[in-house]
């Protein structure tokens, strides 16, 4: 079956990626990625590890520039914009990095409060309330004064999720939010992402290995393989399509295009 890409809806898609290519040295990591993330929906990107999911997210949030191709966010072509415009687009983002990327010189409270302290005019009391509320939502109440180094990987990830959510972003990007969490926590995080998404009508792009559990909380699936989107569409449609590579992947038998193992957790 053809990749089902929502090409007609560029107008109502928050993110539209067309034919994105990027190579590192000899390795063609992104080899013509097409993706559309409709506004107000959760798009889950799945795929074998090392296939370029993180690299794709870093193009969406403009940490990396593509060799060729286009990325349109809220109607704005972002691959060639200047610094000021780029920062304006980024104000809409909440990003959870794969390894958390918490500031290790700051406590959990300071980390989560950071975007509010630096980028808004909210008062202390209000910031404290918002932080407490968000920490409670990710199950980290009482951890305000811990440093990231004093917490487990799963707790760090939840703190990082709280930081990504604190400014109530319009577009949420999550790089493996549940990897390393136990099933109960995984379930809670999925519920939280879904609830937040509904409450604020935000658009979410999530990279996840929790297949097929995560599909229950997703509106769309994009399956990445060989530097492209093998399939991309609404969950039921993708599941009904019985794509061979996708089913192998779900059965845990996907042959990745694993190059040499990444030197970093990126």
């Amino acid at each position, binding site marked *: 079956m053809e990749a089902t890409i929502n090409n007609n809806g560029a107008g109502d898609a928050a993110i539209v990626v067309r034919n994105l290519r990027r190579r590192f040295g000899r390795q063609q990591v992104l080899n013509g990625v097409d993706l559309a993330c409709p506004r107000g929906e959760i798009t889950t990107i799945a795929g074998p590890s090392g296939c370029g999911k993180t690299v794709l997210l870093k193009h969406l*949030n403009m940490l990396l520039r593509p060799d060729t191709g286009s990325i349109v966010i809220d109607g704005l072509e972002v691959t060639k914009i200047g610094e000021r415009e780029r*920062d304006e687009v*980024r104000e809409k983002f909440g*990003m959870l*990095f794969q390894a958390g990327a918490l500031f290790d*010189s700051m406590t959990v409270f300071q980390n989560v409060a*950071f*975007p509010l302290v630096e*980028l808004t005019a909210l008062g202390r009391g209000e910031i404290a309330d918002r932080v407490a509320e968000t920490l409670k939502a990710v199950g980290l109440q009482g951890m305000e004064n811990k440093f990231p180094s004093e917490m487990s990987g799963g707790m760090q990830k939840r703190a990082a999720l709280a930081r990504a959510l604190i400014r109530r972003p319009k577009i949420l990007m999550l790089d493996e939010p549940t990897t390393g969490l136990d099933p109960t926590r995984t379930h809670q995080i999925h519920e939280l992402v879904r609830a937040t998404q509904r409450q604020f009508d935000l658009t979410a792009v999530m990279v996840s290995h929790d297949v097929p559990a995560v599909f229950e909380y997703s509106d769309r699936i994009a399956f990445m393989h060989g530097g492209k989107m093998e399939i991309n569409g609404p969950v039921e449609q993708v599941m009904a399509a019985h794509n061979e590579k996708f089913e192998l992947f779900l059965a845990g038998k996907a042959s990745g295009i694993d190059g040499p193992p990444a030197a970093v957790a990126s």
Partner: protein
Amino acid sequence: MIERLGAVVIDRVAALGDFVVFLAQALFCVVRPPYKFRLTIRQLRSIGAESFFLVALIGLFTGMVLGLQGYNTLRRFGSEGALGTVVALVLVRELGPVLTALMITARAGSAMAAELGSMQSTEQIDALSVMAINPIQYLVSPRVLAGVISFPLLTGLFDVIGIWGGWVVGVGLMGAPGGPFINGIRQNMGGHDIATGIYKALVFGVVVMWVCCYKGYNAERMATGVSRATTNAVVLSSVLILMSDYFLTSILL
């Protein structure tokens, strides 16, 4: 072969360009709002806290050695009275700024390179960027500014303690005349000598912060990235301190 050489040259020139642009951005962000007063003060505190006692200790012993060597040399010419002048001028014009800069590099500069390097390798710097916070303005500018402020102050500390150390050894221990020690300094050390020391300290402050921040900020994302960045930062800072010292001296003489 020639092609490869060309590629290497282009690489090097590009890296040098990067290095210069980095400082230009940092300096630009010092004057552009929003100002980061709190961060600058935090950096001042950490440079001061890390380097204060080290600078004082090295200053003391440098002064004491100068007192000892100076006394023994000057005695051969029967001019022990010039000891104060010699110790003070050598410290204020030369050893104060240079040794202070080297000590701050070893202590605070290396810590800075390691800190920024680890922030780079764990994507904390990327996290700042994605939050629409300029990481150069947030991380580098306050450090450069703190360097410009703290280097002259710590150099002054070094000089004062060093002169005192020279007095203790030269006058107190070796028996050089105490009156001429003080009077010599009063009469022979002019504003120009002090200005020379301050100019040097200012330049070293920028150079050390520039190099240490740049190396940390651009640490490679590998297991050895942070330690390599730290080593490179200390070595390059030290080399640049001594090289720029020569040129500054020849200009300011």
